[in-house]
């Protein structure tokens, strides 16, 4: 086999290996019942989230996001991966709704008038909205809102 044919064969091997490896290495964003924004496990069905909130007596944090939303990426990288924020989120049931494909979350999104991402709502276990974050807030402010929301919603 000449050099260029060898190169071509090597090329196809690299393509196949790369394709297979990268597809399996890609982070899971969502499966049947969850989505994994910022590496956290979020519910995607409002009904399930409300049941969990009632049985655990926790407030619900609703996160409206979209794949193309750059502020959502900032939330993921900067806020949700932060230890302090995560500690605060332990006190919440997490519900994330993709505004492009809201699925069962469509009614809730309409009720919350969440038309563009990113948006957050804090709800009591009974489903009453107590706080809204529209758009982007930086981390410290989000922490303050989460702390206050946890008190107000329980």
């Amino acid at each position, binding site marked *: 086999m*000449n*050099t*260029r*044919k060898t*190169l*071509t064969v090597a*090329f196809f091997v*690299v*393509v196949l290996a*790369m*394709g297979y*490896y*990268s*597809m399996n*290495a*890609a*982070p*899971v*964003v*969502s*499966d*049947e019942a969850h*989505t994994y924004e910022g590496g956290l496990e979020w519910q995607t069905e409002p009904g399930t989230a409300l049941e969990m909130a009632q049985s655990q007596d926790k407030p619900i944090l609703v996160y409206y996001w*979209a*794949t*193309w939303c*750059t*502020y959502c*990426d*900032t939330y993921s990288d900067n806020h949700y991966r932060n230890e302090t924020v995560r500690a605060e989120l332990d006190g919440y049931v997490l519900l994330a709704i993709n505004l*492009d494909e809201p699925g069962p979350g469509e009614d809730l999104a309409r009720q919350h008038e969440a*038309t*563009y991402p990113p948006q957050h709502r804090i709800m009591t276990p009974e489903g009453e909205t107590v706080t*809204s*974050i*529209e*758009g*982007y*807030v*930086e*981390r*410290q*402010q989000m922490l303050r809102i989460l702390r206050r929301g946890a008190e107000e919603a329980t």
Partner: protein
Amino acid sequence: MIFGTTAGTWLLAVAAFAGPLATVLLGYQYAADTRAYDRVIRVATSVTTLALASALVYLTVQFVTGDYTNAYVWDNTANYLPLLYKLTGVYASNKGSVLLWALLTAVVATTTVLLNRFDVRGARLTQALAMGVVSVFATMLVSDSPFVPLAAEFPDIAANGVPADGSGLNPLLVDPFMAIHPPITFSAYALLVVPFALGVTHFVSRLRGHDSVFVEWIDSTTRWLRASWLLLTAAITLGGIWAYRVLGWGGFWSWDPVETAVLIPWLGLSAVLHSLNRYRTTGQYSVLAPAATAILFPLVVFATTVVRSGVFRSVHSFAGGGIGSGILFILGSTTALAVVPAFVYWFRLQDAAEGATADGGPRFGQPTILHAAVLAFVLLAFVSVWGLSFPVIRNLASGVEVGVDARYYNLWSFPVVVFMLLGGGAYAQRERMSGRTVLGTVAAVLVVTLAVGIGLARPEWQLATTEPFDPLYYRVVGGLSVLTVVPPAAYFAAGWTGRFVDRVARIDSRRVRLKETGVVLIHVGAAILVVAVSLVYVFSATGSVGIAGATGLDDSGEPVVRAVEGTPYTVEVSDYRPANTPTVTEAALSPAEVLSTDPSATAVLVRGEVTEVQRFENVTIAQLDGSSVWVGADRGTVAFEPGTEVVVRGSLSDPRSTNIDALVYTDRENAGTVDDPPTDVYQPRVVDHRFQVTLYRGEEVVADGIVAEQSYRGRDMNTNDPLIARGPLGDTYVVGTMTRGGGLSIEVSRYPLANQMWFGVLTMLVGMCLLFVFDPAAGARD
């Protein structure tokens, strides 16, 4: 309206008739090897192009004059827009941009028919294929016409008669860069239609045992491709500048699906131009070069499908909403045409045990390196194709949604780019030196590269932040220093500069020298670009701070000063000044205009000078400008003084009086003078929230100016005006976002080497221009 169809659609119908006619006749002439219908064909192709051109001109006239009987016009423009943006509204959405694309393609196809420079049988098939694409476009436009009447598309709106104003243009598109981005992109796309047709014809001719047109047209094809390459590079650059300036999202490239999609034909073009170079001089790549040339057009159709289909959500989703099955038909048929004949030919070639032309020469000669370069471009394109595709594939297969982020694209592309730089450097050096010397140099550069990559891998210099649970590949490549790219880039730039100096010394022709200058500028520019982009990615830093109550600030008061978390900067916000467009006074109607408004309007805004006041038991009314329009309010609530000019918002009522035609009834909140208008109750089209911001690093002022966010009535979207402080070593970028309750979130980013990046692109563009204009081997006359 003629037979229930608008005049514009009739023009498109003419194109949709003449186009297929020309296609069929050209196809017949090819099949029967005759030229009997040449005159008819010339007329039919010209008519197609003229009809499409007339349709575009007609649509443009409708935009400029504000003909809101047309649904597309109503939906994409408005009276307030300046002329430039009335013109660009034409291609602001799907239908108009397809029309523009169709026309440009028709111009290219018709040019080849009318010039008819190549009198071989295959030329007719090439022209037939090009006209075939135009015909599909024309048919698509008839079935999904930009001339649909308002009453058909928006019956609710049309029920009240022809609207006085349009619904407006997407605010993101109101930008000079966006005005030229689409025409350049579509020109680049249109230029690829003839190379596509030539590539297909080549294999069909070969299979049928005829002479190939590809060989004859190769020089002019190269020019078509180079022009397309130049325009596509410019289009991508303009898009990047737009994202940087207008989106205010802090960045020029974010691996958005559309950005990724347009990169694929660009990489494809680069690969093809490199392989054609060899094909032209030695005849190598006898299958690959024409096949790759043919596949470029389907690739740009694929890019368009990604932009418009709505399958991939992105910043370009304003153009979504389904482009219809027409574009999918073009995608499917052109792909099949580009791939199938080439494959059949290739199979037969294997049977004939050809391949004798394929090799020879030294193991590590320039042909081998060039081959690797072509493969590497394809590999880069594959990274992008795969990044777009596999989430969709995996989702369809298993219902699991996986994420593709910048890290995927960056970390898989990076090693390929590093090897391309090494290979490109070796190619240039190999021209003057022996294989052994070059291999030795490459080995030395590789050692330096690895030493830099591992030795200088400080956490803040690493390509990506990785976690222990990340896959091995990401940890290894992500853990490398970004400076890994510097030694190969330097070797690459030095190699090409050396080759240039060596060649120019031996060349007398001015044109060839200029061509060689073009070649070296493209390569050196690419090296600068790659280094700058890598460094910008890794060293850009962002921090943000929230400022509560920012809208309460004014110039005379105490400014707010805050440290920006995660950066060495301090930000000072000293003033907030919202600007309404139009202002309430500008938006107010004159008394004469009030009389001509729709009487069912719930509220009108009027301004005028009070010329007479009458007081009744419960009501005070005032005449405006001595006209038959009066304003009124409950007695004692609004003070109407003769001689003052007032701005009043209220409900319109008919007072049934002989000398009063219209009475605007108002109250305290909705009335004011011109100096103190009722701004609070007024909803302007645009509110420009302008904040005076100063950014400090220690005591030093880094940036000082206005950071603004615009909000739009009736639209869930904002635009931002960032404050950008340019410096020789990088840009500092400040963008503000309004938060709930009058707060402001300030985000400060640092983009090192941003200007070097633009410089790299500019160098490449200049090089491409020189190569296009001065290459004597590709049509430029000496």
